[in-house]
């Protein structure tokens, strides 16, 4: 599903990622944890092709992202739900239209769009904010809108970069539960987070990054002491 083979990313002289190997199977749920600046967002950008690795190979959904042509990228991205860390929304469209845009761009018909947008808005609890513009949302609402957009077309792969950063613990856990439900329906999910409580409670696979390197990889249902060691290694 997702496979990184000895991937490095170099900005100037700084290594953001250093010979990273990672393989995620279909149906897995993976937490990506690490201190700030560890390279989590960089890794995500590689997956959806916004960034190319300086070295190594990036395979996503069977496609070699590291050498896809720009015009091939859109078709890959349509099979991925992407929540970037800066949760960008189209600034001149309401929440409803933001989600509809993605669906229409993929080719959904108008009635399907309407139905699906209503569904995901209800899922993330933004029914009341549907007609608000992005600059009229609270931080947490904007984040949920971005998640709603990402999951709108039931993508087989979901990538969310700190989707709970601006959320209170309750809403955070609801979002994670939502992602786990989507995962149970068959989608592969990769989520980065700083929230130890969530990681503990979710009991899923956890991959730890530290200064651009994978330092720990605890499988689903791993022993608590393994997680503790992981937290210690990345100071979570």
């Amino acid at each position, binding site marked *: 599903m997702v496979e990184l083979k000895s991937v490095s990313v170099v900005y100037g002289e700084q290594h953001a990622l250093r010979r990273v190997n990672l393989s995620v199977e279909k149906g897995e749920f993976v937490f990506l944890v690490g201190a700030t600046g560890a390279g989590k967002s960089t890794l995500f950008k590689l997956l959806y092709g916004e960034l190319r690795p300086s070295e190594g190979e990036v395979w996503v959904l069977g496609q070699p992202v590291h050498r896809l042509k720009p015009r091939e990228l*859109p078709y890959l*991205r349509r099979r991925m739900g992407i929540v970037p860390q800066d949760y*960008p929304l189209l600034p001149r469209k309401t929440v409803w239209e933001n989600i509809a*845009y993605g669906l229409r761009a993929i*080719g*959904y018909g108008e009635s399907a769009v309407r139905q699906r947008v209503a569904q995901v808005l209800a899922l993330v609890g933004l029914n009341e904010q549907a007609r608000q513009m992005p600059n009229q949302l609270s931080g947490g609402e904007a984040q949920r809108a971005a998640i709603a957009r990402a999951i709108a077309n039931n993508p087989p792969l979901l990538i969310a970069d700190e989707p709970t950063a601006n959320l209170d613990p309750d809403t955070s856990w609801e979002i994670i539960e939502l992602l786990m439900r989507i995962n149970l329906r068959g989608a592969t999910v990769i989520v980065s987070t700083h929230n130890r409580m969530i990681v503990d409670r979710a009991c899923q696979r956890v991959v730890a990054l530290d200064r651009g390197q994978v330092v720990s990889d605890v499988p689903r249902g791993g022993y608590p002491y393994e997680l503790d060691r992981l937290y210690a290694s990345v100071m979570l």
Partner: protein
Amino acid sequence: MIDRLRFVLHETRESLLRNATMQAAAISTACIALILLGSASMALYKLDATAQSLPSQFEAEVFLKMSATRQQAVELKARIEAMPEVERVTLTPREEAWEQQKRELADEVNLADIPNPLPDKLTVRVRDPATLPAVAQQIAQSPLVEEVIDSRQELQTVLSIARLVRWIGLGAGGVLLLAALILIYNTVRLTIFSRQREVRVMALVGATLRSIRLPFVLEGMVQGIVGGVLAAVLVLLGATLVSDYAVRQWPFLRDTPPGLPPLAILVGLPMVGALMGGACAWWATQRYVRI
């Protein structure tokens, strides 16, 4: 396919309706560029037509030998009229010419008693002034003809002035066309530039390069059309006002040939606007829209 089209049209409409500032800027820029282009075209077309119409007043004067009879003069007239380049030939009998001369000089000299020294004269007008020298030369070969005066010198001057007007017109038109393109390109480029964050979001949800670009291109075309219609109306209004005033002040201006027909402006400017707007958006998106 229909969904695709609907999507693109929908996005274009949204964008046109939402960004009032940008629309105002883009449309007024297109409008100004097209006003310049349109009024320059009209002025230059008029000037060119006027310059082209001047030489039609140039004619050759054919003076026959004193020995030629009236019968021969009429025959020669018929022969010249048969030439394909010739439009009209007028015969001025020597008696008529002398009467006129006497009348003109009456204030200064009394010519009443002097015998008529003038010959018969044919005035030859050709269809295309450029053929006049050749026609004159051919006529001069006739044994009946004493002299042909074809005002070659003046003709050359006027023709070359007409050429100058045409060249300056084409040059100015070309410069203005380029200027209009650059102006519209700049505006479209700035609007696209200021929406790069939007473009990034669109790319992230998997919109193809084409579905991102097409709304920009259509938007550019609509802006061009709206600007063009405004420009056409303003140009026609301005032209009517100026020409009304000018004709009232200088009645002789009434005799100049008609200018560019209003329909050409009304249809042409919006079309040129659409073309330019679309093309500029196409280039600008090519440079500034990346996936």
